């Protein structure tokens, strides 16, 4: 392995991280927006957001990416590769995330809502001061899983010739022919990023839980993945990794 190859990898890694951060930001916005819409009072809002979730959960992220990159220009919007990738990842993982948000909001005790109404909070205050502070800590472990899924999803962008880590690996392979070594290194790099992400999310989870006076369960291993068997609805599945 030469210095030039390492430089190629780190450039790729940088693009991968950018792609992940942008997609995660979009996915978070979509997740909260759609997740809140799923708990709306108006049936039409619930219905439309439900259609969104089922559609984007139902199709393949890679096909969506290809569609945005190749088909959308024919309808009049040309997207730069990295934005097609970001949009596809953000929209599809946002749909998975919205189920997490919905599940967490619905897991807050109904009495909390009633108490807030009794204190004549406005709906906005109810959400901001009562619901979200209690729901957000619940969302952290499944969000961690989704973030790792999203990181893995960024590799799909290599098929659009975006120069992220996997694409750079392909270039390196074509120039040196050392497939095993190159792909081995790339896998380890992805694994390292996933590990760091998990650590960061654990810290965030601990803080969120501390702010509502709860402790984090100990002994969760290196990566948090839990799949409660008792309630395997869609929201519970999101905690098991891929929904």
């Amino acid at each position, binding site marked *: 392995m030469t210095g030039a190859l390492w430089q190629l990898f780190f450039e790729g890694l940088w693009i991968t991280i950018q792609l992940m951060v942008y997609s995660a930001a979009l996915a978070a916005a979509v997740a909260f927006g759609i997740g809140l819409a799923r708990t709306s009072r108006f049936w039409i809002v619930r219905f439309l957001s439900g259609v969104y979730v089922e559609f984007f*959960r139902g199709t*393949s992220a*890679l096909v969506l990416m290809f569609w945005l990159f190749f088909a959308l220009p024919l309808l009049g919007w040309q997207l730069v590769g990295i934005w097609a990738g970001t949009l596809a990842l953000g929209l599809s993982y946002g749909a998975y995330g919205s189920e997490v948000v919905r599940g967490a909001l619905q897991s807050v005790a109904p009495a909390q809502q009633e108490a807030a109404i009794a204190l004549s909070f406005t709906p906005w205050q109810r959400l901001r001061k009562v619901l979200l502070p209690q729901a957000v800590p619940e969302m952290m472990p499944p969000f961690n899983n989704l973030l790792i899924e999203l990181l893995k999803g960024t590799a799909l962008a290599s098929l659009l010739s975006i120069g992220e880590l*996997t694409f750079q690996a392909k270039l390196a392979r074509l120039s040196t022919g050392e497939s095993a070594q190159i792909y081995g290194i790339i896998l380890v790099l992805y694994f390292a990023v996933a590990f760091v992400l998990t650590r960061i999310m654990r810290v965030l989870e601990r803080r969120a839980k501390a702010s509502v006076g709860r402790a984090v369960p100990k002994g969760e291993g290196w990566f948090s993945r839990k799949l409660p068997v008792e309630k395997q609805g869609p929201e519970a599945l999101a905690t098991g990794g891929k929904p």
Partner: protein
Amino acid sequence: MPEILKGLWITIQATIYGSLVSFALGLVWAVALRSRSRWVTWPVSIFVEFIRNTPLLVQLFFLFFVLPGWGLAFSPLTTGVIGLGLHYSTYTSEVYRAGIDGVPPGQWEAATALSLPRRRTWTAVILPQAFRRVVPALGNYVIAMFKDTPLLAGITVADMLFQANSISATTFDYLEPITIVGILFVVISYPTSLLLRALERRLVR
């Protein structure tokens, strides 16, 4: 359209075989992780976490380019099935683990009290009870795998996405083939997930 349907057949084949591989391997990991020996649990858990936290696409490339160098030359579809099965086995193992944990501890104790050998305990007591709980969750991963089959186009498997791309390359129509493929995925996976939810209500009470 006939080409896309041909691709759909390949996609479905990859999903079915990949699922079978993942069901079998996942069970191996799950049982291995319950072993009493650290020499078994450590390597398996490191391997499983490694596979689960790295991209499937890169794993597919690894298998596709590296296996022939080790003297294992498979067809692209076989390579894809191995890759899908291996990747998803790390998820199904989690499903089995949860299912096994859901079996009341009294069952283990009863098996010990009857002095059943460990293997009989697994096959006659634990797994049959865990089975009912895991079926719907396994089904969800089959759907997830189905939606990941387009990745096989990256290793020259002639699945739906591959077919759509080759149609586009000859006709310069990029809109229609890929739209059809995207919609086909929804049309197949959504009803399946509805069926699964119904099945879940019947199986897991």
